[in-house]
């Protein structure tokens, strides 16, 4: 078993008084999982990873790896004694060593016999599809190849835990996609626990068994990709996990975890809602652009709203529309490219209430103007 248990972890950089890079983080990473720490830059995800690796000392809290205490304020097991692997954002492939020398380094440290080392390096090289390039220097490799050298170097020592710090962010889109697939397969094949840091929500959704969304140094939500995407725990998570329409609404009636909301003027919708909604309470409802259906002509028998198309952007696999409802509420809608509408068209709008999330608005924030349809993608 090589799980990681984090309890009450805090770290601030400019002394204890400075702003916290990470505060009171608790996380249970189970063995054999692919876990992603997801958040915008500066949210504390890399700090968390470096705390797990043992490069920095926490101000408070503990980290257990494999049921062994490895980090606390009083004592930090140095990185070289943790038996983890780490892949850095800039790969950190040593420029003065060949591919083979890079990969065999960890085995030499473990006094593995030359013959066994050779065999294990060959395996690792084959695993990452670099066979034949063993004698090259890093400067003679492409970015993707260097990336794979870094991976092989970490995998060859068979760590139980592999830490990856935005390993794909320096690759071009196509290569990133391919490496994404290879990483996922690799994790399944080796059974190593992967802790993966990224700011790219699409990457996190595609790769992870579980995603920890971190924002402002705090854990916002820890769950499966599906959960985090379709049941975001807060508007911050909803906002970060892709494009979303966040609309102010008022609770009209509530009963048994269901609430009837009024959005704008005259548009009501029945949704699941946790907690104890009170009639009259102000809330925010998050609607993903793909949960909205546009139709022309309007279907006669179903209830629907009417909106006018104000802008349309063709993105290849989808079309992105801005529509304005009769009460002037603006929405972002994404549809299949075969469903085409022209600017100015009056279309029927149907919202899939089952896919919507509702967040209570903190009383203090009521004056804040609602942000709508803000994307967090790249």
């Amino acid at each position, binding site marked *: 078993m090589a799980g990681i248990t984090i309890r009450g972890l805090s770290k601030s950089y400019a002394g204890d008084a400075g702003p916290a890079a990470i505060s009171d983080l608790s996380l249970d990473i189970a063995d054999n999982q692919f876990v992603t720490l997801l958040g915008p830059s500066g949210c504390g995800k890399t700090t968390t990873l470096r705390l797990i690796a043992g490069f920095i000392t926490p101000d408070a809290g503990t980290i257990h790896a494999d049921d062994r205490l490895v980090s606390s304020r009083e004592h*930090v097991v140095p990185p070289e004694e943790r038996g983890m692997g780490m892949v850095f954002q800039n790969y*950190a492939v040593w420029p003065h060593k060949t591919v083979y020398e890079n990969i065999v380094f960890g085995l030499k440290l473990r006094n593995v016999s030359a013959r066994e080392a050779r065999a294990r390096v060959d395996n690792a090289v084959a695993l990452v599809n670099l066979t034949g390039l063993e004698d090259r220097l890093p400067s003679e490799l*492409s970015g993707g190849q260097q990336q794979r050298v870094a991976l092989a170097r970490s995998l060859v020592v068979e760590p139980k835990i592999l830490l990856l710090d935005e390993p794909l962010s320096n690759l071009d889109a196509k290569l990133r996609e391919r490496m994404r697939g290879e990483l996922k397969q690799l994790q399944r094949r080796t059974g190593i626990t992967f802790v993966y840091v990224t700011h790219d929500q699409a990457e996190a959704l595609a790769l992870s068994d579980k995603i920890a969304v971190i924002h402002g140094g705090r854990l916002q939500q820890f769950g499966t990709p599906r959960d985090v995407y379709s049941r975001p725990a807060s508007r911050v998570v909803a906002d970060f996990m892709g494009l979303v329409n966040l609309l102010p609404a008022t609770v009209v009636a509530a009963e048994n975890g269901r609430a009837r909301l009024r959005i704008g003027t005259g548009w009501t919708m029945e949704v699941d809602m946790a907690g104890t909604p009170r009639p009259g309470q102000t809330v925010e409802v998050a609607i993903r652009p793909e949960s909205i259906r546009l139709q022309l002509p309007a279907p006669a028998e179903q209830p629907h709203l009417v909106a006018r198309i104000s802008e349309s952007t063709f993105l290849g696999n989808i079309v992105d529309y801005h529509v304005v409802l009769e009460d002037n509420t603006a929405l972002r809608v994404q549809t299949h490219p075969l469903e085409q509408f022209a600017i100015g068209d009056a279309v029927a709008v149907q919202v899939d209430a089952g896919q919507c999330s509702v967040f209570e608005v903190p009383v203090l924030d009521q004056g804040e103007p609602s942000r709508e349809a803000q994307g967090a993608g790249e």
Partner: protein
Amino acid sequence: MPSARSLRRTGGNRGGRWLRLPRLETCVMSAAVLALVVLVVLPLLFLLVGSFRGEEGLSLEHFAEALTGRLYLQALRNSLVLGAWTGFFSILIGLPMAWAVSRTNVPAPGLFRVTATLAYLSPPFLTAIAYVNLFSPNAGLINVLMRDVAGVPWLTFDIFTMGGLVLVTALHTFPFVFLLASSALQSVDASYEEAAQILGASKLRTALRVTLPLIAPAILAGTLLAFVNAIALFGSQAILGLPGRIVTLPTRIYALFDYPPQYGLASALSLLFILITVAALYLQHRFLARRSYVTVAGKGARSQLIDLGPVRWLLFGFCVLVFVVAIVLPYGALIAVSLSKSWGLSFWQNLTLANYRFVLFEYNVTQRAILNSLLLATLAATIAVLLGAVIGWIDVRTRAPGRRLLDYAALVPLGLPGIVMAVALIQFWLTLPIALYGTLAILLLAYVGRYIPLGVRAANTSLRQIDPSLEESARVLGASWGRTLREITLPLIRPGLFAGWLLVFVPVIQELSASILLFSSSSITLAVAVYNLYETGYTEPVAALAMVNMAIIGVALLAANWLASERPHGRPPAAARAGATA
């Protein structure tokens, strides 16, 4: 599934629970800090204490004497006069050359740069000796030529004057102004000048009213560096000043070590010396800091070369003149003297290699001096660079408390004239029961202490170019601190360290200011041997030994050039490629 083979060392039994750093790391870093304390901090403290120690207890008597005694005031005045005139002439020579090279279409700009580099590398005490051979009032070759052959006695020149001393010193210091001014000129965006011209200003007016103010801080900074270096040179001031009774601070301090040595007074005088130097360096730092504020031009800095027309040949002629006076004349003279049986008007009638045979194979003092200097320079350069690497590493890579202080301590020797360093070392080591005085060891301490800033700077620059993740990835794989240093860090910063090594080696080979107080007959060095032979009147062997000195420097520089262009196994410069991204 995790393999049984995956390795997890049982942590915690290395070093105590309370020890955050593994033991080797702590040891090496503490040793480096300790070395810096012994090399720089303690000698300076003892210098301070020594200057206040009177016949009975604490007293200010040494300072009182240093500040009132006629001899000392005169030395102080002479040093300041020398520094000021040298600074002035450094501007006069360096600035036109800098402007010509960076802003005009002057022919052969390469020659200008080579002139500045060679002039800077030439040890001024050798230039002084060469000029004595040409311009000593009675026997100087050119003086004899003018007076006795050409019959124009008013064209003779006495080198044993303040004028002669300033000339020889400025030939060594003008490169400071040249280098700082030309880099400033290159970073001034041409649009500043174009804006002035569009408003109707002439070329001359633009240069004086727009360009000059922009680069003034750099010029001042270069001039102050020239000043600081000029007043610290013992060799040229002893060779040219003493015959003409022009005593300066270094030569006065040196005289205080004649029997009976006056340590207290020498220490007080040394502290005054440091005060002047540090004040000048502080001003220099301020000016340079201001420069970046004035001429910020970003990446877009572009400069347009000014077409000077026929005037450019005038500038070119000026540069050729500097080249002749700074390089051709002194080296021509030294080569000629070294090859002649007896230096005089008809020296070319009986050329000989006997002088070289004498200094290289027959005279054991010069042989010993050459070997000592080679050994000391090699050791000093190696130690300074390795120590610099550790101190640089602490500064760049750790969050150790007091690391800035360490960095400052490592820069302090920049403000120490060589002879002051020697006085400080004598004060310190004479109080200890270890008999170090007169050994090679104390010379080594002096050299490493004096040039440690160059080692630290080289290491700092290299380390900053290496992404920390290169070291961290080795740590994660299980490499200890020492192993990471040996296998990753040192190989990656090797090119930078090598450059630093040469930066120390070259000045140590020609070091005279500190060595002159610290040597003994068994630990004599190359520069000291040159000086002593000169004092004893061996004109021709001195020249041969001087050429040997220059040959060693030349070989070192050629080796540096060769190694810098050589990329083993076609590897890119490690620093530039470190942490390369796609």
